[in-house]
């Protein structure tokens, strides 16, 4: 049985339905991210699990028991906020000890536990400092230590890295994941940053307009997006519209030429469909090989790779190549032919 079960959750604020028919099951120790643009309802789902919002429909069960009747302070959760929310009048150690003091744990037990937590986040030296004396990254680590100090059964993180600098964000997300693995806490993580979600999660829930569009492992989400929204939200995407070839279903005829379709493609001959191809899946090829023909409009040097903007019919396709793979003949305004491996051509359903 799942550790946490969210069934048919729904929530409205006034006339706006913010979460609709949301279902999710988390296994014990699993790290699941809720990913989506602003306003997609991910934070609301998190706050409902925490107990700060009450769902209008649906149920939330932790370890089999419904928690809807319980107030936030009874649910045994740990929460990390985007703005850290450290108590300014307490030192770092006192902040971390807060949950234990509230639970009336004996002082003799609190101190070693606090030290253990601070060691885990690497801030033992800051024990006696006050929050205003710490940097953003340090404050967030204290917030994490505070949230897990009383051994909650669920850890909830509400965009904890959004307020931090890029470099610190990258460093901290590795730390958070490592600590989560070490403690084995079931974790729900809200973010709008797909890189974070992809790199940290066991599974990702891509949300849009209050609904879960797709739930899957990072690999599934990235390589087999179920809807156009998911495909567009994760990574960059080229959308190619065309018509399935009448004579040979193995090809898609479109403005610039034709694209080979995978054998397992589910389409009727002559059907008008849209497919998606990632920029790194498109490769230049000799003109005689068929494929898509277009004109190079712009070349962007992006360090690790080079991005070509190719106009192909009405659309502009983005093509990412390693610099050394580019032939010297690629010039702005010159012609180019592109091809893609059939397994990289993704059917877009919606």
């Amino acid at each position, binding site marked *: 049985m799942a550790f946490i079960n969210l069934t048919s959750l729904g929530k409205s604020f006034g006339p706006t339905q913010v979460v609709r028919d949301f279902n999710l099951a988390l296994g014990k120790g699993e790290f699941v991210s809720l990913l989506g643009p602003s306003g997609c309802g991910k934070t609301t789902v998190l706050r409902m699990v*925490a107990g700060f919002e009450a769902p209008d429909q649906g149920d939330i069960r932790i370890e089999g028991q419904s928690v809807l009747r319980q107030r*936030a*302070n009874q649910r045994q959760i740990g929460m990390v906020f985007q703005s850290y929310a*450290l108590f300014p009048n307490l030192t770092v150690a006192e902040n971390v000890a807060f949950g234990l*003091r509230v639970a009336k744990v004996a002082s003799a037990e609190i101190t070693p536990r606090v030290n253990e937590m601070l060691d885990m986040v690497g801030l033992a030296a800051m024990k006696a400092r006050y929050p205003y004396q710490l940097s953003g990254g340090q404050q967030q680590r204290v917030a994490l230590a*505070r*949230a897990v100090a009383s051994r909650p059964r669920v850890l909830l993180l509400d965009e904890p890295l959004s307020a931090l600098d890029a470099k610190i964000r990258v460093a901290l997300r590795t730390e958070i994941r490592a600590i989560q693995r070490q403690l084995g806490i079931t974790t729900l993580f809200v973010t709008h940053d797909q890189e974070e979600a992809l790199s940290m999660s066991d599974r990702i829930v891509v949300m849009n307009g209050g609904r879960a569009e797709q739930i899957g492992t990072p690999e599934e989400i990235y390589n087999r997006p179920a809807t156009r929204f998911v495909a567009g939200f994760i990574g960059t995407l080229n959308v190619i519209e065309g018509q399935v070839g009448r004579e040979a279903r193995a090809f898609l005829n479109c403005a610039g030429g034709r694209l080979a379709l995978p054998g397992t493609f589910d389409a009727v001959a002559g059907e008008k469909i849209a497919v998606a191809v990632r920029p790194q899946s498109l490769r230049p090829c000799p003109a005689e090989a068929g494929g898509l023909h277009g004109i190079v409009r712009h070349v962007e040097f992006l360090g690790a790779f080079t991005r070509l903007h190719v106009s192909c019919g009405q659309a502009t396709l983005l093509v990412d190549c390693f610099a050394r793979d580019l032939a010297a003949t690629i010039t702005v305004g010159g012609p180019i032919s592109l091809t893609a491996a059939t397994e990289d051509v993704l059917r877009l359903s919606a």
Partner: protein
Amino acid sequence: MSSLALHRLERSISLWLGVVPFFVFAFVFLILPTLHVVIGAFTRPDGGPTLANLSGLLSGPILSALWASLRISLWTAFLGTVAGLLVAGAVTRGGLPPALRDAVMTFSGVASNFAGVPLAFAFIATLGRLGLVTVLARDWLGINIYATGFNLTSFSGLTMAYLYFQIPLMVLIIAPALDGLRGEWREAAESLGASGAQYWRMVALPVLWPSLLGAFALLFANAFGAVATAMALTGSSLSILPIILFAQIRGDVLQDPHLGYAIAFAMIVLTGGANLIYIWLRVRAERWQK
């Protein structure tokens, strides 16, 4: 002097020229008079230094006036702090419509300046022997408030009048501090298992404490230095320290001009000290609100 040095001197003179009028004015009309009074507290009529003036403060009528001033200032500061905190709390986080908050803040901005003669008249018109409330209490409720020993021109009457500008002042000071109590702190505390009362006890009140104490100090200083309201309300009959000083300045009723200096010095020390406490606590509070 070399022409370069002369030029530099010219430049620094012209630099300072812009602020000279201000400093001269402040010196002549603010600092010098105050210093004169402070020094006078320590000088004998013949010019020599002495502490006798200060010890004169500890004699009969002056001491009781000092005590009366302390009592009313502490009392109105305390009541004003509590009442102002309740009103500010009700209007910022009590779930009342936001428009009420703006109205209350605007009113407080005006009312905190109401101290003085018109305020005294307003209270006489309301709670005096023929005042509206007195009359209504007698006609509608059958209660004669003056029979209970209440007298507008007494300590309790003055307290009620002082609260009229003390409470708004408190609201003005504490509302921003209440706003500074971030909602996430409460949620964080809840997520850690704390009840509402525990949150207030362990986080909110400690964070508010410097602002509360500082406001109390400011209210104390405010009440201590108030003269006009008391005089308009009670004539010169109520002997609080500023009124004694007033009478002394007017007509040397104490038969010793330097005693006046001593009284003034005592007032400066008390109000200045209270203000310093307020400023120090405010700096501390703001540091946490970063």
